C-alpha cells in the first residue's frame, strides 16, 4: 500500500510541474537552497565528532533536537505543511488505519525537506558510526530521527487543524501559536546569546549543558543512542533507541487519531449569533474611510484581519512583535538612550512583508471585485488604507512607551512621519508584487497549514525575498538621513520628516499606478491565478 501512495505522490508532483513554470522554478530554487545546506550539515556531523571528540556528544543531541523542533514548528509558523496528498480525498476509500497512515507517511517522506534532513543526518553515520554492531544502532537512530521529524510535522498540523474547527477555539489557539512563535524566537536569541563561547572548551561545555537539558526529548534520545553506540555502550544505546521508537509510534498514533477525527466528524455548527447587522465599515474607523469602493475594500480588509484565521495569526504576531520589540529594546539598553524610539520603525518593515500577497486571502471570491467594474486602483488603495491604519496604530503602540521610557519624546514625531514614509514606500512595492505575483492560498479542510504542492513554498520565498530586498533598498535614503540626524547633524531630522513622507507617498503612488494599470488590463488573469489549483 505504501508503494501505491508513493507512486501517487510522485505522479501528482510530476503532473503539478507539467506546464507550471512557478512550481518548476520553485522546485529548482528549493534544490539550489537545500543542496549547500545539506552539504554543510553533512560535513558538520561527519567531521566535527572525528576531529574534536569532546564536542561530539553534545553536537549530536543539539542538531537532532534542533532539526526535530524545526520540523515541528516551522510548518505551523510558516503555513507550509505539504498537502500534496490531501487525506480528505482518501476518506471514502476502504483503507485500514494502518494502511492509511503508513501510506501517507511514506508519501510525506518525499520532498526537498525530507531529502535535506536525511542528507544532514547521514553525516552522523559518517561521524559517529563505529565498526561492528554499533553501526546498526547508529543507522537505526538516524532513521528514527527522520521518522520523528516527519511524524511530528504531520501530527502537529493535523491535530491543530482538528482543534481549530470552531471559531471560538480557533481564536484561542491562534494566539497560542503566535505566542509560541515569539517564545521560540526569544528562545533562539537566548541560546545564541548564551552560546557565544570564547574557546572550543566553552563550546563543549555549553553543548554538554544543552544536551543534558534536552537529551530526554525523543530526538535527544535518538542522538544519545547514536553517541552511545559510537562509544560502544550498546545496551544503553539500544534502550534509548527503543524509547525514541516508542515516541515515534506515539506521534504516528496521535496523527492517525487526529486524522480520523478530522475526516469523519463534521465541523461543529457555529452557534448563530442573532445579532443585528452592524454595517460593513467598523464604527471606530468610519471617519477615516471614504464611503466608496476604496472604503469598502478597506473595511473588508479590516474585518478579515480580525476574522480570517491566517490573517489573524499574522496580525496577532505583528502585535506581539511590537510589544516584544519594546520590551527587548528596554531590557537590552536599560532604556537610557532616547534614540531608541526610532527602533519602533522596525515593526513597519516586518508588517510590509505581509502585504506582499494582498490578493491571496481573497482567493476565488475576488470575482466579486472583478464584476463590480470599479477602478482597480481602488482595490489597492483600500487594502493599503487598512494596512496603514493598523500599522500606524501598532507603530504608536511601540513608539509611545519607548518615548516614555527613554524620555525621547522629541523623536516621536520623527517616528510617525518617517513611519508614514517607510510604510508607504514598502506598500508601493507590495502593490506591484501583489498584482504581478499573486500566491493562491489552498482550500484544504484537513490542514489549515497546507501549502500548495512542492514548489510553491519555494517560489513564494523567492519572490518575497526579492521584493523584500527591493523594499529595503528603496528605504536606504531615508535610513541614511535619519542616521545623519541622530549621529552627525540633528537638523537632518527636521528635514527627514517631510522628505520621507513625500518620498514614500511618491513611491506608493507609483506602485498604485503600476499595479492598478496592469490590473486594469489583466483582471481575469489575476482571478485565474488566485483560484487554488489543487495539486491532488
Amino acid at each position, binding site marked *: 500500500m505504501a508503494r501505491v501512495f508513493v507512486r501517487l505522490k510522485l505522479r501528482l508532483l510530476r503532473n503539478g510541474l507539467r506546464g507550471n513554470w512557478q512550481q518548476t522554478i520553485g522546485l529548482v530554487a528549493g534544490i539550489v537552497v537545500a543542496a549547500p545546506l545539506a552539504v554543510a550539515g553533512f560535513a558538520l556531523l561527519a567531521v566535527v565528532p572525528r576531529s574534536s571528540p569532546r564536542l561530539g556528544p553534545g553536537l549530536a543531541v543539539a542538531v537532532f533536537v534542533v532539526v526535530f523542533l524545526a520540523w515541528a514548528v516551522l510548518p505551523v509558523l510558516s503555513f507550509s505543511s505539504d498537502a500534496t496528498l490531501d487525506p480528505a480525498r482518501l476518506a471514502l476509500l476502504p483503507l485500514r488505519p494502518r494502511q492509511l497512515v503508513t501510506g501517507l507517511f511514506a508519501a510525506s517522506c518525499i520532498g526537498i525537506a525530507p531529502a535535506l534532513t536525511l542528507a544532514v543526518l547521514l553525516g552522523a553515520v559518517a561521524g559517529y558510526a563505529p565498526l561492528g554492531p554499533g553501526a546498526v544502532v547508529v543507522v537505526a537512530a538516524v532513521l528514527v530521527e527522520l521518522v520523528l521529524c516527519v511524524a511530528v510535522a504531520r501530527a502537529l498540523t493535523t491535530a491543530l487543524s482538528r482543534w481549530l474547527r470552531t471559531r471560538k477555539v480557533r481564536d484561542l489557539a491562534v494566539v497560542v501559536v503566535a505566542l509560541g512563535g515569539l517564545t521560540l524566537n526569544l528562545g533562539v536569541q537566548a541560546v545564541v546569546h548564551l552560546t557565544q563561547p570564547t574557546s572550543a572548551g566553552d563550546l563543549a561545555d555549553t553543548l554538554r549543558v544543552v544536551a543534558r537539558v534536552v537529551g530526554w526529548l525523543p530526538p535527544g534520545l535518538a542522538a544519545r543512542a547514536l553517541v552511545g553506540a559510537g562509544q560502544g555502550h550498546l545496551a544503553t544505546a539500544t534502550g534509548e533507541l527503543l524509547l525514541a521508537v516508542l515516541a515515534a509510534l506515539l506521534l504516528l498514533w496521535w496523527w492517525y487519531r487526529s486524522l480520523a477525527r478530522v475526516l469523519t466528524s463534521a465541523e461543529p455548527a*457555529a452557534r448563530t449569533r442573532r445579532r443585528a447587522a452592524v454595517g460593513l465599515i467598523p464604527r471606530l474607523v468610519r471617519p477615516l474611510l471614504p464611503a466608496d*469602493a476604496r472604503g469598502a475594500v478597506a473595511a473588508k480588509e479590516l474585518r478579515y484581519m480580525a476574522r480570517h484565521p491566517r490573517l489573524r495569526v499574522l496580525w496577532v504576531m505583528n502585535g506581539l512583535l511590537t510589544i516584544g520589540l519594546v520590551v527587548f529594546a528596554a531590557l537590552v539598553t536599560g532604556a537610557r538612550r532616547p534614540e531608541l524610539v526610532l527602533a519602533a520603525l522596525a515593526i513597519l518593515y516586518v508588517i510590509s512583508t505581509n502585504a506582499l500577497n494582498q490578493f491571496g486571502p481573497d482567493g476565488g471570491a475576488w470575482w466579486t471585485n472583478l464584476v463590480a467594474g470599479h477602478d482597480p486602483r481602488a482595490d489597492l488603495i483600500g487594502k493599503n488604507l487598512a494596512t496603514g491604519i493598523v500599522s500606524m496604530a501598532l507603530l504608536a503602540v511601540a513608539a509611545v512607551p519607548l518615548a516614555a521610557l527613554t524620555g525621547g519624546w522629541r523623536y516621536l514625531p520623527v517616528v510617525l512621519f518617517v513611519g508614514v514614509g517607510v510604510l508607504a514606500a514598502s506598500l508601493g512595492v507590495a502593490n506591484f508584487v501583489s498584482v504581478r505575483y499573486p500566491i493562491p492560498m489552498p482550500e484544504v479542510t484537513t490542514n489549515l497549514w497546507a501549502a500548495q504542492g512542492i514548489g510553491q513554498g519555494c517560489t513564494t520565498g523567492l519572490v518575497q525575498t526579492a521584493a523584500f530586498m527591493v523594499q529595503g533598498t528603496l528605504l536606504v535614503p531615508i535610513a541614511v538621513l535619519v542616521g545623519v540626524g541622530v549621529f552627525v547633524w540633528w537638523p537632518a531630522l527636521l528635514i527627514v520628516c517631510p522628505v520621507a513622507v513625500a518620498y514614500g507617498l511618491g513611491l506608493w503612488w507609483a506602485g498604485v499606478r503600476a499595479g492598478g494599470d496592469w490590473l486594469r488590463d489583466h483582471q481575469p488573469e489575476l482571478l485565474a491565478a488566485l483560484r487554488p489549483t489543487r495539486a491532488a
Partner: protein
Amino acid sequence: MDHDGPWRAAAPPGPPDTALSVRGLRKAFGSKLAVAGIDLDIPHGCFFGLVGPNGAGKTTTLSMVTGLLRPDAGRIAVAGVEVWRDPFTAKQRIGVLPEDLRLFERLTGDELLTYNGLLRGMAPDTVAERTRELLDVLGLTEAAGTLVADYSHGMRKKTALACALLHAPRVLFLDEPFEAIDPVSARTIRALLERYTRGGATVVFSSHVMELVERLCDRVGIMHEGRLIAEGPIDRVRDGRSLEDAFVQLVGAGEVDTEELGWLGSSSA
C-alpha cells in the same frame, strides 16, 4: 445566428436593441476547444435559458460574457456596450451569479451586500435600503448578521443573487441558479426573477433542469461541444416535442446499453 459581414470597428456587434450580442466567440484550454465559435442575439426583456450537457461550454461562455474569462476570439456586447473593449461601463449593466459561488466567507450577509454596493459606487443610503429589502424578500433578514461561512448552500445562493441584483442591472447572468437548491428557495428565486423580467430586464441562465427552463424561458439555446446547435423562441426549438426530447435528439444521445454491467447489483460483499 447569421454573420452579417465584417465589423465596423466602432459599433458594437449585433442589432442595436439587443440585451446581449455575441459574435464568433471562441475559447480553448490547451488543445481542448471549450467554446468553438458562438453567435447569439438576445432581445431585451427576455428570459433566456442556456442548456447543454456537462462540458458543453455553458459556464465558459457565461464567464466570457460577464468579463470573468478572457476569450481567445470574438466580440460581446451587453446592452450596447462591448464587454472586452469597455469592461467598466459594461459591468455596470451586468449582474452575475457564477457557478462555483466563492464568496467572501468572513463577511456577514449584510456586510457582503454593502460591500458589493459600495464597490459599484452606489450611495451608502441606497445600498442600505436595497440591502434591507433584498434580504427581507429572500428571507435572509434573520441571518443578516451571520457570517456567510455559516450559511447553507441555499442561503449562499440567495445571498449571491441579492448581490447580483443590488445595482438593478439591465442584464442578469446566472450560472446554474437552481442547482442544489431546495424547492422553497427555488420558488423564491423564481418569483424574484419573473418580477425582474417583467420590468424589462433580461435574464440569461444556464441549467440542466429542462422542465424548469421550459416553464420559465421564452427563448432557449442548446449548447453541445462548444457550439450553439439550436437557438430561438422555445416553441420553435421544441417543435412539438418536450424540451428534453428535443434536447436529447439534438445532442444525439442514443439509448443507453447497460447489458454489459451484469455484475452490477449482484454484489456479494
